[in-house]
């Protein structure tokens, strides 16, 4: 736990939760549902800490059937989808539910962290062949567990980038309309280029030159593929997929006609307030930092490695930092679709001001006052294979319209704490995963391979300083 909840805060928790008295020995994880009505506008520090602590309880709790865990008649799909027949086994590694708690996989070095190969998840749409108990890759992609430290900052960066890209599109649209000529505009945000867009005067657009972002210009920063826009969206997906805990805001009466879509005898298993608590916990996790080794040789090597990292082009995608204008995290988020509570569905969104947290004071700022988020990423998708180096193309299924060979740039912050590597978690060393870069990473990879042993070692020394230090 990254902060302790005192007695006063526990008392405050009562005001955030709906009353539900349970015996101390109850086998339920959810002792109180969080009341969404208490979450509007900016939360003060205590309120935020309490909410995040509630979220940590839900993140680390091993859900039971008394909570509504399990989904006997629903698949793992992100769109409410019925099974064709009751499930044989309550748990199943492929189609899920496959975990008791979020922290069953996200646990290294602490809750909210990454997971080893044993904690891999299996990604399938959940629409076809949902019940097959097989690891055949034609039915699912195997994915290593990402860490969530700094996830709030990541989402905020993505929101600002989405807003930038859409603003550029709107400006191009107006220019094309007013000028009567097609406009070819460059899409770019925070120094990251996303290709071009051609807008005709009548508003039709040619998106064939868009690069690294979806055609709706929503930057989706989460998952190895980069296909989820918000922590809230991903949380709802994961709660259903991995635990069979269904959020009312997607699986409830409004969208399915029943409060108990999975037919396990429990309705509205997770309230919007519960999801907010989970989001608050994840969004407030501190960003990974830079470990300062006691060993002078390591320090020297890391310094040389960081220079080499940029020199061979790694930093073109693994950007050391991206500027962020605001670290006020509004929840619900502005760019989600129906089925994930949207900003437009509440009178006043809650605001988790990350500046209230101690770790925020450590974030560097540029001359414009922007926070510099040291993610070592660009929140952009790239083709990661070519004809010669195709290790990352080891999947058979596209995911949510993103082809097999395409992945979002892995943020390297925390990489020293989150081995193994690669989207499948099947590479045990940094050297292996660097050598696996094809496609957009090929030139840098080749430079690394061709470099001296000393330079390669220095690069590893640098990467080994990017630690999660909760």
């Amino acid at each position, binding site marked *: 736990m990254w902060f302790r909840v005192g007695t006063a805060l526990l008392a405050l928790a009562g005001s955030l939760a709906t009353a539900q008295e349970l015996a101390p020995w109850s086998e339920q994880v959810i002792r109180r549902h969080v009341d969404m009505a208490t979450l509007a506008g900016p939360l003060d520090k205590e309120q935020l800490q309490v909410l995040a602590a509630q979220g940590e309880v839900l993140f680390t709790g091993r859900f039971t059937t008394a909570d509504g865990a399990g989904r006997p008649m629903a698949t793992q799909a992100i769109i409410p989808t019925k099974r064709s027949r009751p499930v044989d086994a309550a748990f199943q590694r492929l189609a899920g539910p496959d975990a008791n708690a979020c922290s069953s996989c996200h646990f290294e070095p602490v809750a909210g962290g990454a997971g080893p190969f044993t904690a891999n998840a299996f990604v399938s749409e959940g629409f076809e062949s949902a019940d097959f108990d097989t690891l055949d890759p034609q039915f699912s992609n195997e994915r290593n567990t990402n860490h969530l430290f700094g996830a709030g900052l990541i989402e905020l960066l993505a929101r600002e980038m989405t807003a930038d890209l859409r603003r550029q599109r709107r400006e191009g649209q107006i220019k094309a309309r007013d000028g009567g000529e097609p406009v070819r505009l460059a899409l770019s945000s925070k120094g990251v280029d996303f290709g071009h867009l051609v807008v005709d005067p009548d508003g039709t657009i040619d998106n064939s030159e868009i690069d690294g972002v979806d055609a709706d210009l929503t930057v989706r920063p989460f998952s190895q593929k980069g296909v989820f826009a918000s922590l809230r969206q991903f949380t709802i997906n994961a709660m259903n997929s991995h635990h069979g805990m269904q959020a009312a805001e997607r699986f409830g009466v409004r*969208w399915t006609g029943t409060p108990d879509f999975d037919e396990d005898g429990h309705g509205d298993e997770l309230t919007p307030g519960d999801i907010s608590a989970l989001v608050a916990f994840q969004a407030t996790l501190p960003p990974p930092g830079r470990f300062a080794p006691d060993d002078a040789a390591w320090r020297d090597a890391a310094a040389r490695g960081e220079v080499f990292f940029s020199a061979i082009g790694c930093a073109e995608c693994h950007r050391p930092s991206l500027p962020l204008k605001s670290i006020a995290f509004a929840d619900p988020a502005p760019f989600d679709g129906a089925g994930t509570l949207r900003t437009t569905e509440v*009178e006043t969104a809650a605001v988790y001001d990350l500046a209230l947290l101690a770790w925020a004071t450590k974030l560097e700022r540029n001359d414009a006052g922007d926070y510099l988020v040291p993610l070592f990423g660009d929140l952009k998708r790239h083709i990661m294979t070519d004809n010669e180096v195709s290790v990352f193309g080891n999947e058979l299924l596209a995911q949510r319209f993103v082809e097999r060979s395409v992945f979002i740039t892995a943020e390297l912050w925390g990489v020293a704490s989150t081995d193994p590597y690669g989207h499948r978690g099947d590479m045990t060393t940094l050297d292996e995963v660097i050598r696996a870069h094809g496609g957009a990473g090929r030139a840098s990879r080749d430079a690394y391979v061709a470099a001296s042993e000393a330079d390669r070692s220095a690069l590893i020394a640098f990467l080994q300083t990017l630690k999660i230090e909760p």
Partner: protein
Amino acid sequence: MSRARTICLGVALALASMPAAAEPAAAPTGDVPDFIDDAEAAGITHAYTGPWEFFVGGGVAAFDCDGDRRPDLFLAGGTSPAQLMRNASETGGPLRFDAVPLDVDAKELEKITGAYPLDVDNDGVLDLFVLRLGRNLLLRGEGDCRFRKANDLWAFDGGNDWTTAFAATFEAGQQFPTLAIGNYVDRKAPGAPFGTCADSWLARPAPGDAPSYSDQSPLSPSYCTLSMLFTDWNQSGVPALRVTNDRQYYRGGQEQLWNVEPGARPRLFTAGEGWQHLSIWGMGIAEADLDADGYPEYALTSMGDTKLQQLDAEAEDGLPVYSDIAFQRGATAQRPYQGEDYRPSTGWHSQFADVNNDGLFDLFIAKGNVEAMPEFAAYDPDNLLLGQWDGRFVEVGGAAGLAADTRGRGAAIVDLNLDGMLDIVVVNRNAPIGLFRNRGVRTEWGHMPMGNWIAIELEQPDINKVAIGARVSVKTGNRTVTRTIAVGGGHASGQLGFVHAGLGTAERAEVRIKWPDGEWSHTYRVFANNFVRIERSAPAAGYWLPPPKP
């Protein structure tokens, strides 16, 4: 229609006392959209007026006449002049329309009962078929909402009947559309109006490089038709002509299904082929494939109960045998759902659409007394039946703000302000039109959006550019919902433009098109809450941006 309808009274009263009506009204599980009537504020003052001949009709054509993709409106007026209203609504804002003068003889803008948009000459600009008491009109669209009468240009006589229905299709091998023109009572025949239905007509284009409709053949017998629709009821790829007729005036008539094979004379499906005798006060046809089995269901409005027809699962394959599932599905809508008038309803325009974007078809029915028929409800509000996940429909017309005390006739369900939520235009007899803007779900603090959606525009090269007859298949997860692009049906009202589909919680969809010639497209991947364009053979769907909000 103004004469006493004693025949129907017993039947209608029996329906009005059906058990379902006595049960407490079911509550919908999904979002109930909140509509506000913007007509007056939008600058539209229009009513459908006139004597007996205009008790029926009262249609609206919703289509883009100036190339900005905002739906414009052509409103039939009966004895009042028809009006063309250019849509000047801001994206997502209140509705606003400007009247556009029509360069058509003023007399010919009167006695209009309805209108349907279509592209007759394949020039990419929508034209209008205008239904009249007297000579029908073909108005050629010239862009910027300018129209020119093209009856002579296209050798279309227009007739001198009381036209109340229309449908169009592109038959295989034809460059131009085939027109079906539905007529009502022959007022000049001996013994009129009872038993004197005028023939309806089928106008096929003559061979050549320009439309020519000099060759028209009667669809005889005709039974006082009030709606007709080309529909591929059996997935044969050759649409048949479904016709609904008003039993008030025919003698020995019934509902009809014409087999319209290319190059052959139209032929009625017979009892020997499974077609079952059904006699109703047929006013409007709506089509939707509710169960996604590839075979459409039909909602037929009438006096008293609405019919909801589904191919009978027990019948021999390939026969047009239908069972009525309206009662099981809660869609009979046989009497007013609110107020204290318990007399049976009178239904007119019917249309399936997803007005709350939950991914389920909803059913709108325009309602209203013929004029002052004492056996039927005087206060007869329009219905909005929300589709439910159990396959039933639940009435929400009152909660949605649609329960106006008007005599509804024709209608269109169309996104007028391009906000992704369908609005509703209703033409009323002797009263201002209803221009109902969908504001989403009402809350204590304002309105919130409903489900995700997608709007799809199709384009073919050369012939049938707007792809009449195409089937649009939208897949989200395991669910597939199909819509057919059609010109016809409803009550004297037609629309063309974006095909709207609610997506519920899906943020992506896979779209496939079965083009009118039967060829399936590959799968197009699209993101929700966008307007997309699919050009035939294009590798990917394009997007279209509505004008930015100021």
